């Protein structure tokens, strides 16, 4: 019985979430901030691995990241909505909806063509955003400080509270996704990845699978963008730029598509490398990031997730 409980996704997630919430009290503020940003990036990465399970990689998740960020930002500045939980939720739903609308257009494409078309979408949005002066053009704009259920936390606790909110919301999303991955439709997505023709000949639609996965990925990307915007207190067109999208792809490749926690670990690794090299080697952080990317692809080509899985299987067999 206890072992069975340990294998339960629900239990594991609650445990991990509680652990993170408690750990957050004891770690320095800058690390809390870094983890919050890693969660934001991880959410987008989670979207990409959902697509990856269906055999696709989007090189333009900056598109949904930006839409989510701007949604949260504009609701804050224009509509006076500052509740972080609500902003994250609305960004999730709204961006998911945008994803659902453009998904049928993208779902016909595969491989590099899907990647490039998604990239084109994100760059069109970038081009538009930097031209709209009303929302700050290429400088972006500042978000109002967030509130939580009507209360505005004092400055010293603001980061921690946002961190807790993001841990909980991400935890819920992760549990739901795990259930989806393990369900029959989730399994069919994996089959689409391997052999679309056969899936069609079994009577299922690869197109529908892709539309669903893209919509989920969009929602997650939007939520990630909103969280990133709220955490930074600022949003600009860089959110949609192709280099940002490249980082998301890296997170998901580094994580692999097997494990949900691996995505957040990969995102945290990226954030840590970025903040350390940014702090100690401010002029060459891209070089360090690039070398880190190359080395991790060379040494763990199938991702942290499969590395975990092998380790876990070994332990189980003992």
């Amino acid at each position, binding site marked *: 019985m206890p072992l069975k409980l340990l294998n339960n996704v629900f239990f594991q997630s609650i445990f991990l979430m509680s652990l993170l919430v408690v750990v957050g009290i004891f770690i320095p503020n800058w690390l809390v901030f870094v983890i919050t940003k890693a969660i934001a990036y991880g959410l987008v990465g989670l979207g990409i691995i959902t697509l990856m399970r269906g055999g696709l*990689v989007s*090189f333009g998740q900056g598109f949904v990241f930006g839409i989510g960020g701007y949604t949260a930002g504009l609701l804050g500045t224009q509509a006076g909505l500052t509740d972080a939980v609500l902003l994250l939720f609305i960004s999730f739903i709204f961006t998911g909806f945008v994803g659902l609308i453009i998904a049928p*257009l993208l779902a*016909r*494409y595969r*491989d*590099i*063509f899907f*990647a*490039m*078309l998604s*990239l*084109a*979408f994100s*760059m*069109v949005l*970038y*081009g*538009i955003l*930097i*031209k709209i002066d009303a929302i700050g053009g290429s400088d972006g704009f500042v978000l109002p400080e967030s509130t939580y259920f009507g209360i505005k936390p004092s400055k010293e606790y603001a980061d921690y509270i946002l961190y807790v909110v993001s841990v909980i919301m991400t935890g819920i999303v992760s549990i739901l996704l795990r259930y989806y991955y393990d369900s029959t439709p989730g399994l069919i997505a994996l089959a689409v990845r391997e052999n679309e*023709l056969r899936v069609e000949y079994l009577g299922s639609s690869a197109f529908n699978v892709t539309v669903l996965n893209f919509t989920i990925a969009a929602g997650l990307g939007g939520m990630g963008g909103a969280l990133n915007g709220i955490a930074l207190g600022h949003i600009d067109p860089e959110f949609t730029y*192709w*280099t940002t999208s*490249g980082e998301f*792809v*890296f997170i998901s*490749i580094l994580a692999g598509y097997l494990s949900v926690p691996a995505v957040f670990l990969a995102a945290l690794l990226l954030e840590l490398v970025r903040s350390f090299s940014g702090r100690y080697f401010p*002029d*060459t*952080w*891209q*070089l360090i*990031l*690039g*070398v880190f*990317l*190359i080395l991790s*692809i*060379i040494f763990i*080509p199938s991702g942290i997730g499969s590395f975990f899985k092998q380790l876990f299987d070994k332990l189980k067999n003992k």
Partner: protein
Amino acid sequence: MIDEFLTIFLDGAIYASWLFIVALGLTFVFGVLKILNIAHGGIYALGAYSTATLVPIFYSLGMPDQLVIVTMLISALAVAIVITPIMERGILRRFYGQDEVLIVLVTYAIYLVLEDVQKIIWGMNSLYVSEPRELLGALEFGSLYYVGYDLALIGLAIFCGLFLWLVLNKTKSGKIVLAVIHNPEISGCMGVNINKVYLAAFFVGAFLAALAGSFTAPLISVQVGISVAVVIESFAVVIIGGLGSIPGAVIGALIIGMARAACVHKLPEAEIFIMYFCMAGMLIFRPKGLFQGAQARKI
């Protein structure tokens, strides 16, 4: 009216020529190695930097002015000679046959590295080498005034495209490359040294990128960040034309060059995203680009 049309046409053609040289290398490398190389933009920037470094040295030696072109060629060649073994032999070779997207990510990492390498070697300052641009004087078309050097770029682009096309289709080595493009496994079994072909193809691609950078250097201020735009623009060209197709790169470059020039003159607000617009539009209506037919799968 005619003047405006001519301006758009010539601006577009000049822009397209530059774009074509970059995209030609990109599409050729994709055709042979099946790698969509993001770092191509980084190599372009290195070409520009190396010209910006070597040309002043050339002038300080007091040689005949016309030979500056040779210096620019040498600087492009030097970049290709240095970068090819590092990138192709050192890194990319490990990933052949793996997922296309994974390799794109690897080249993205190399791109990041190259960005900082430029900063480390040349610093944050802008470099200027406008002298070669005065070499060919200027031409007047009615009320229009064009620098001869800019127009000569059109000739350079035509030369590069024709030369590569002729080498591929009319020489024995070219035919070998075409065979490898068609089917690397079978070519390998027939005794073709695939590794050598890959190395050579990557070298040609890198040289074309550096060449474009080298000949663009006199037109711009060479500074950090010049590669970013190149990456996306040359991607747009090859996506429009069809990955791996030389005629496709011609058409792609012309479409984007003309569309962009038209925007600059008629609708400046749209300039920045017109090419993404072209790219998205093309992908929606002809997903594999203009010059790639749909391949039916045999079951």
